[in-house]
């Protein structure tokens, strides 16, 4: 299973990114880590190039929302990305925010899994459950 990951925008918080890299590898994924300060195009290009199954975006510094809104418009320019699991986590708003509201908003931006201030391992467990469910559905 291939995963493209990185931190979106001008965000340079690198610590979580390093841990995500380690944890994904430990769970057996093939990881393409674009690091911090990565723009949406770079993410999508990498997914196409590597044929990744999962795109896992981090955002820590509060920029996420601005980028979230750009996802759908940009996606129309790419083909064959419909099956890619889109996941985002970190600090998804500036300051505090209502978790349900955040979930709703980011799902509407096109993300399958939204992990606002959710611990990495919990998030990766969610990813696994999601992937299993999908396999079962496509097998059924």
């Amino acid at each position: 299973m291939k995963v493209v990951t990185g931190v979106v925008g001008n965000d340079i918080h690198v610590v979580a990114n390093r841990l995500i890299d380690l944890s994904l590898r430990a769970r057996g994924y093939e990881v393409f880590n674009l690091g911090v300060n990565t723009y949406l195009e770079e993410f999508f290009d990498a997914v196409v190039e590597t044929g990744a199954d999962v795109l896992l975006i981090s955002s820590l510094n509060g920029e996420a929302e601005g980028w979230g809104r750009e996802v759908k418009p940009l996606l129309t320019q790419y083909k064959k990305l419909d099956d890619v699991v889109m996941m985002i986590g970190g600090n998804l708003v500036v300051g505090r925010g209502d978790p349900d509201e955040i979930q709703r908003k980011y799902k509407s931006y096109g993300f399958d899994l939204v992990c606002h201030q959710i611990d990495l391992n919990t998030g990766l467990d969610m990813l696994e459950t999601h992937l299993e469910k999908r396999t079962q559905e496509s097998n059924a």
Partner: protein
Amino acid sequence: MSLLQEERKIILSNEFVDAFDFAEVTDFVKNASKELFISHHFKKNKNKKMMVQPRGGFPTYEKQYALYEFFLKANVDVLPLTVDSNTRLNDYATAQKMLRLSEENNIDMLNGYPLVTHGYRTTRKMITHFDKPVSLRHGTPDARLLIETAIASGIFEIEGGPITYLLPYSKNFPLDKAFLYWKYVERVCANYSQLNEPINRESFGPLTATMVPPSITIVIQLLEMLLSLEEGVKSFSVSFAQQGSMMQDIVTGAVLKKLARFYAEEIGCGDADIHLVYHQWMGAFPMNRDYADQLINMSTVIASMVGADKIITKTCEEAVGIPTKEANAKTVANTQYTLRILNGLPSVVDEEEEEILTLEVKAIMEAVFNDPADTLWRKVFNCIKSGIIDVPFSPHIINHNEMITLRDAQKNIRIIKRGNVPMPDRCYEYHKSQCDLSKDTTSIVNDIIHDIGIMQ
């Protein structure tokens, strides 16, 4: 006209600057209230009361003013002026647009005060009104215009430096350019320092706030200090952040103070005033606000043990999001209270640790000085590039990322892989002997993960 002055004219003839009046500004600085100069407070602060400085910046003049009023009530010693990220990236057009939007709609569209956009004439009113020293916090690699505007506004302490504002804050900005832009800043500060009390420069010791060993922090502090004193700056603050072990903090403070003095004298700048600044824990914070308050209080106690001249505070909302002004003011009041009731501090010395750390720092400094380049900044540039200086968890492409650190049982940060850093073998063996390295790689990786989240 000197080359510098020509460069200044170009920098200040920016379309976003409203007619910079050199003569008027010179005059202002010459006659400015001593109260505005932190260098003056450092000097007259005889009984060594640690100064307290919070963090914080808002887009509009009104909000920044309100923040300062709040801080004053909490008995602040030094006011912060934190600049927004567009201004940091020299994107003054966006800053202007966002400031307008913020003013019109009464919501914050910027994460700090757009100093260049407000300009020095406006900002100076606020600064002189409060008549407290203000510290400029930014994170800008090219801060030339920003610093000119700051000093013209009455902001007489400038934080940052070519290394400390770059390696933790940027991925791609060219390091050599950062050195040149900061050289300009140092010289402008040095020039203004001749008119009244000196402008104070402060380095940003926390770096990435994540597993940076004291030797690396100290080397970078010393180098930024030397680069600044070289240009004529007369008042400089070295700094570092809480590291996780009280003992290691005490040792770091002691060695940093001694070596700062030592190297300043080595380059014939023994007349400069050098101060020590301590940052409350800058790494990952606990989500629980009560716990965060404990951590902050403990930071203050440790800062006192270290004997810092100034402390820069955090708030209980750190892990949650941008702190409110209430949370910020609460921390200031709490920190002042703690300093008031904390008494009878023992003076603590750990000679072995001091010796090891001094050896490490001197070895790295020597390697820097031995680099064949002609100027100090080029030597430093080369050493960062070659990994002689290596900052754990730096996002910058030029950083080597070969050094690996771990915490020992006492939570001291130890170097278990030195990479290209010329650590003397004796020190390296000492570091490794403090850790249990018989574990397998997975356990060590788990230890690193645990060590990052140490305060949670």
